[in-house]
């Protein structure tokens, strides 16, 4: 999907001036490649280099891409990739944001929580909100579920005992094609109060 910048082979370069130009370009590229960003994902700090090599963060990478492809956290889903479905919702400093509409390079110093970060890392025990989704069978195919749970998590963080209307408003940015929505609202209401 990502197009890489093609590097002109040395043989194509003329002798003399051009070689000098090329060296300068390389130096400039090198200088930029030392730029680093630091992300805290689910409590773990990730120091990443900015650049166009495969192990680096390209300025054009979205947070969803970095989470899934660079860090291997595939719990965050990408569906529409245009900010219209809510599948890629993650928490940034406690607030729900769309990771497909966020550039990773602009997340330097941010604290990100994904669906993988909700369960207890020691015991593996699910977050009360996750358990409520299981108890209320609040999904069918489950593709929208990580986004739903992260939006609900943000809502409960801000408003621990929301009304049904507030739950619907809080989840209005998350779409479900299996119409699990009714069960989701029940699950979130059940988890409220219990879930911190």
């Amino acid at each position, binding site marked *: 999907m990502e197009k890489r910048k093609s590097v002109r082979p040395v043989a194509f370069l003329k002798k003399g001036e051009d070689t000098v130009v090329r060296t300068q370009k390389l130096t400039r590229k090198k200088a930029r490649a030392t730029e680093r960003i630091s992300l805290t994902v689910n409590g773990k700090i990730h120091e990443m280099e900015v650049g166009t090599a495969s192990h680096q963060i*390209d300025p*054009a990478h979205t947070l969803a891409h970095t989470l899934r492809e660079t860090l291997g956290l595939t719990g965050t889903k990408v569906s529409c990739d245009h*900010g219209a479905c809510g599948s890629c919702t993650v928490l940034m400093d406690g607030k729900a944001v*769309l990771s497909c509409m966020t550039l990773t390079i602009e997340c330097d110093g941010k604290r990100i929580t994904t669906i993988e970060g909700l369960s207890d890392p020691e015991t593996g025990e699910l977050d009360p909100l996750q358990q409520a989704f299981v108890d209320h069978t609040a999904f069918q195919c489950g593709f929208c579920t990580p986004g739903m749970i992260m939006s609900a998590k943000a809502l409960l963080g801000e408003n621990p005992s929301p009304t049904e209307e507030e739950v619907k408003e809080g989840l209005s940015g998350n779409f479900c094609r299996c119409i699990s929505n009714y069960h989701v609202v029940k699950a979130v209401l059940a988890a409220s109060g219990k879930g911190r």
Partner: protein
Amino acid sequence: MRSFTHINARTLDEAIELLRKYRGRAVLNAGGTDLLSALKGEYLSRYPETVINLKSISGLDYVSEDGGLLRIGALAKLSDIVRSPLVSSGYRVLAEAARSVASPQIRNAATIGGNLCQDIRCWYYRYPRHIGGPVQCARKGSGPCLAVRGDNRYHAIMNSRKCFAVCPSDTAVALAVLDAQVHVSGPEGDRAIAVTDFFGPLANALRSNEIVRKIEVPKVSVSAVQTFLKFTVREPIDFAVVSVASVITREEGVCTDARIALGAVAPGPVRASKAEEMLKGERIDEEMAAQAAEQALAGARPLSKNAYKIEIAKTLVKRAILR
């Protein structure tokens, strides 16, 4: 997305200087909720070489009130505006308009400056490269507006020429009814533009290398009733088919001041000045509201498929007046 270089601007002056240096090859990014769509669809005439991040500029996200003016920094997030007690108590119509934008996640990222400067939603203009685009049109500088002969159900019904797309911003409609001013900074210094003058058929009023700095809203009388109504096809994450904002003051049933703005009907928010004049000094009832609504839409010239928007607009104006 195709690659680009990325620069974090530290000050507004630095951002202006960078825009000048890149001569149209750089774009500004605040919340990113509109820009990233443009970059992914690659429908702009020229893919930017550089993205300049504005979020790295500190102190531009304030919402404050002093000297009878509400001041909102261009980087204030829509969610901050919705939550601000200052806005929801004195400038309710703006809080309601901001709350009607997209979804909670988008409001947590999108800024007021970006909401005003967002690109149009025309489906010809935004047709993505990877499925056969980009489509050339009047707004991109070549050819006619394809909506005129094509599917124009969500396009303009008044004040358009060359490009028939409507202004998609909800906050612009509320700010127009509040007589707000957009303050911009550029290489030639600062200037203020009335919100209604900020939008035009082919582009907004920003000159090259100018950036929106803040929005100033004059105080509204405490007795005024402020209303924002938005008609959409689906409730959340949708742009207005038609929206109406109003600020109406009544004393013992008689209207002493009326301000009405229509949204998503033209390249910018439209003040219904004649309807406003009509209401002043009159007792507001059903019939009066219907006449004012008729007057507000008197200048409408619909395209082939959007005459229905006139009826929706009239109904919303009537409801707003009677609220």
